[in-house]
């Protein structure tokens, strides 16, 4: 396993990737992250050189269905829990031209 030193920069970057704001009172998360990362190093004791990964335990793959329209939620129902709705759509925060 590679060196897992979780520096402030790595921590901030991970928070950004996670879309999370870590409050000052939650600063201990960083130490706990380091602790957990240290704990899992125990896996280095096991040789996995010729072992394939198991992503899923009942070995099903490429589960497909017929391309047929099935009954689904109505538009109104699908929108019913949204905070902001506009013309029958979910309204999101702008991601481009934010200042316009």
């Amino acid at each position, binding site marked *: *396993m590679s060196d897992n030193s979780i520096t402030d920069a790595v921590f901030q970057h991970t928070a950004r*990737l996670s879309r999370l704001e*870590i409050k000052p009172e*939650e600063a201990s998360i960083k130490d706990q992250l380091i602790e957990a990362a240290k*704990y899992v190093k125990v896996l280095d004791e096991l040789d996995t050189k010729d072992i394939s*990964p198991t992503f899923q*335990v009942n070995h099903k793959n490429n589960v497909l269905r017929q391309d047929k329209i099935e009954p689904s939620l109505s538009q109104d129902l699908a929108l019913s829990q949204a905070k902001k709705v506009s013309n029958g759509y979910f*309204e999101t925060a702008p991601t481009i031209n934010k200042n316009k």
Partner: protein
Amino acid sequence: MTDLNKLTLFQARQGLKSKKFTAPELVQSCLNRIKSLDKKLNSFVTIVEENALKQAKTVDINLPLGGIPLAVKDNYLTKDIRTTASSKLLDNYIAQYDATTIDKLKKAGAIIIGKTNLDAWAHGSSTESSDYGPTLNPWNTQHLPGGSSGGSAAAIAADETIISVGSETAGSIRQPAAWCGVVGFKPTYGRVSRYGIIAMKSSTDSPGPICKSVDDAATLLGIMSGHDPLDATSIDEDPWKKPESRQNLNGLKIGLPLSYFPSQIQPEVKEAILKAAEIFKKFGAQIIELPDVLDPKYSIAVYTILQRSEVSSNLARFDGIRYGHDRSFFGTEAKRRIMLGTYSLSAGYYDAYYLKAQKVRTLICQDFDKQFQKVDAIIGPVSPTTALKVGASKGQAMFGELQDMLVEPSSIAGLPGISIPCGFDKIALPVSLQIIAPQRREDLVYQIAKLFEDNTDYHLQRPTL
């Protein structure tokens, strides 16, 4: 009749059919119990009084669960009933559809009386991380009920309901069932649909029952199971059917993994499990010590990496746009898990963490395959200790993992397992035994558990409240 809430599913069905009481009386009895106790225990996040009583008046009691009060872990989507996952982020979320399992349980006539408390997002083994406050253990309210399905297990132990459902990712059915002295049945991965259950660690999430007896749990599992086209990992099999029970265990080999008795195990737990093994031996089983089962410490590490990774991906959907509040409503525990998951999946670390863990998962599956060549089923403690004190999980980054160390290996391999009461410790807290079998061998799990229950009375003990 009084105390209808104390009945098992089997007894309640008999009473309803023979008209000793009515479905509204049965539902009312559970609601009364909730009203008198739940301020103390906090098993429920939401109580569904009006609707439950209304449904009880018209339900067909000839259905398999007709008129039976059901408590549902609050991570199952329930149409028109609030579903919070015990997180304030979903405080106002009303599900627009039912989970497949809820649909099946409703069609079988079950009446939802409430949604039970859990560790927020099912992240934990204490129910202490719920944004709605901890649930307390009915056996001793200074102790935790376990988790994450702590509300369902406590509601069953306190007779606030007749049946309940929980979900297990790595211990979340078996461990709270053990700490609360009730029966928790975790099915083979894929046996019960995950559709409509708030996703946590999708590659091991397994919904299942928590009940007052092995038969009750097996009946519920039969109803909840079966192939679901809406869950791509659902097994292509008909619903599971409870097999005949056995009068003896002749010809059966039961394994006792020595590594499931770690040094920190509470002596009374060890003693109760070895006593249970003697009972199985008395009924004809051969008890075989398994000296070379992979140390559970590796499962703790695999689970820690994979759970966090899948959590970071699954919880990415909570953006406050389509439902719920925005991401600032995540509690510290969820943030901690999302952060570690994002870290282990991010560029430069993926191979060292996520991929390595998935490879060790292969070794864990292979290890079980090897052990199941020697034995038919495996028994051991569910948890190294009985219920710990309220506050025990605070500030402990690995609390859940350490409490669940003996159920994590079988969860990672997708195996079925059950937790059944098998004793009490010095301060009268329940001790429980787990029985694990190869994938799709719930029949064996049921038969061994049922024989134990038929010949002991631990499951009949109830806390004084």
